[in-house]
């Protein structure tokens, strides 16, 4: 499903960080493209540089060399066209559930009147199952509810892109599976171009059009895998033979990269 126009393009992207022992190359000459309304998952060993690449798309960092473009234009900084779901959610603790969702709509970039804000809040609270908690403080919410709130807050400003960094990593298996289905459901209603970082091979297959497998640091592209299953997808997909084959293929790649990483750190310490 790589038919739509290119939205996010990584063009020979390299990133290095200054360290005590000189510059450390983290991302090494990565090129690929994410197309309109495509769901791309990025998977790879821990510490390889996945968050780093996403930070560049989000506009928090600049490439050391190469470029990342959005609709052909360079990225100047963070903006409401790209909704970011952080691993630690970043729910504002001093605002209620509803105020969190409305936050983006009170800013100059996307300001809406009270009536529209109310309507948007109601809509996403209903969609995310938060209606009963409109006026609750975030500290009263469970992990899954915080996750849904983060998603609702990002959706409220109508981003075209969704950048998610291990969004379901902290959830238990049942909640995680429910959140995956909810995400697919929401995306079916309001299509977005999605980049998702995950450590779960199953999650990557279940959700994505394509999976980008990254190598150990300095990270390069190991393989880009097309996921052939049509949407809407249901839980039963997990049981299919094709799913199983794809899973073992992706898992092998990831395990190999973990092995490379382990060897590297052995060499460093030895």
């Amino acid at each position: 499903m790589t038919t739509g126009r290119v939205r996010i393009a990584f063009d020979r992207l390299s990133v290095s960080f200054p360290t005590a022992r000189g510059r450390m190359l983290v991302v090494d000459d990565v090129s690929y493209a994410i197309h309109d309304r495509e769901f791309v998952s990025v998977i790879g060993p821990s510490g390889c540089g996945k968050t780093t690449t996403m930070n560049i798309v989000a506009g928090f960092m600049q490439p050391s060399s190469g470029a990342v473009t959005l609709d052909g234009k360079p990225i100047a900084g963070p903006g409401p066209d790209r909704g970011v779901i952080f691993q630690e959610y970043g729910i504002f603790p001093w605002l209620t559930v509803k105020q969190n969702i409305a936050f983006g709509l009170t800013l100059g970039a996307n300001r809406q009147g009270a009536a529209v804000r109310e309507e948007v809040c109601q809509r996403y609270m209903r969609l995310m199952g938060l209606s009963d908690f409109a006026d609750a403080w975030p500290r009263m919410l469970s992990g899954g509810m915080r996750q849904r709130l983060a998603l609702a807050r990002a959706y409220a400003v109508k981003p075209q892109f969704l950048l998610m960094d291990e969004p379901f990593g902290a959830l238990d298996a049942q909640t995680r599976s429910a959140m995956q289905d909810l995400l697919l459901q929401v995306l079916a209603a309001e299509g977005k171009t999605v980049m998702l970082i995950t450590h779960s091979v199953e999650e990557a297959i279940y959700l994505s059009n394509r999976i980008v497998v990254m190598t150990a640091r300095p990270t390069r592209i190991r393989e880009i895998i097309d996921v052939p299953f049509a949407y809407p997808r249901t839980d039963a997909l997990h049981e299919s033979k094709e799913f199983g084959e794809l899973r073992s293929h992706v898992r092998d790649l990831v395990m190999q990269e973990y092995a490379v990483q382990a060897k590297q750190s052995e060499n460093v310490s030895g």
Partner: protein
Amino acid sequence: MRRTALILAPWLLLLCAWYALHYSGLVNPALVPTPHEVAVRFVELMRDRLPLDILMSTRRVFVGVICGIVLAVPVGFVLGWYRTIRTFIDPVINFFRALPPIALIPLVIVYFGVDELAKTVILFYASFFAGVIVMYEGISQISPIYVRVARTLGATDFEIFRKVIVPMAVPHMLTALRVALGVAWATLVASELIAAQQGLGALIQNAGSFFQLDIIYVGIICIGFIALLMDLALRMATRRFVSWQERIV
């Protein structure tokens, strides 16, 4: 009902212990006036100089703390937010904070005399350094994730300041105020002990030179209760302003 009983219980216990000490014969009863003697003296003094003493003392504390906090909030804010500035300024702040304000009283008397200005200066000093540390420690703990989230939702620098940083700073501001109040109150009495005609410290000092133990007790108890009331009031304010927090302070 139960709650009231629980709140009163420790006070009653203290009162009993006080009577017990007086009548036990462990100490010379003349050196420990009974609670009811102190109460009688309190009523007497309330018709005399005590209201003015209380007024003077509380007013000094308020002026000093307000001046101190008004400066401590922006300074603590800048130090908390800009790590590089903090690295250089932190030792200086800690140097001055480590000096007990009481030790500076003689110097302040030399420079500012013995009138109101001198006391205000001491209290300002005490509350500024107490407040600024709480403030910047608090601000520097604020997680940068909220700023990042706000940016991805389209916030400008000014919007981030007003809608993210200020709300997160409010609890630290209130804590700084509480700490400053405690420190200022302790310092005030010390400064009044040394040089003042009015105020609770002066009351105690005068009574001491005439060996009027009951008046000393009245003074001490007033100091304790006023500090307690101020703290309670601030805690109530805190609860109102930062109800989003689980526990306050």
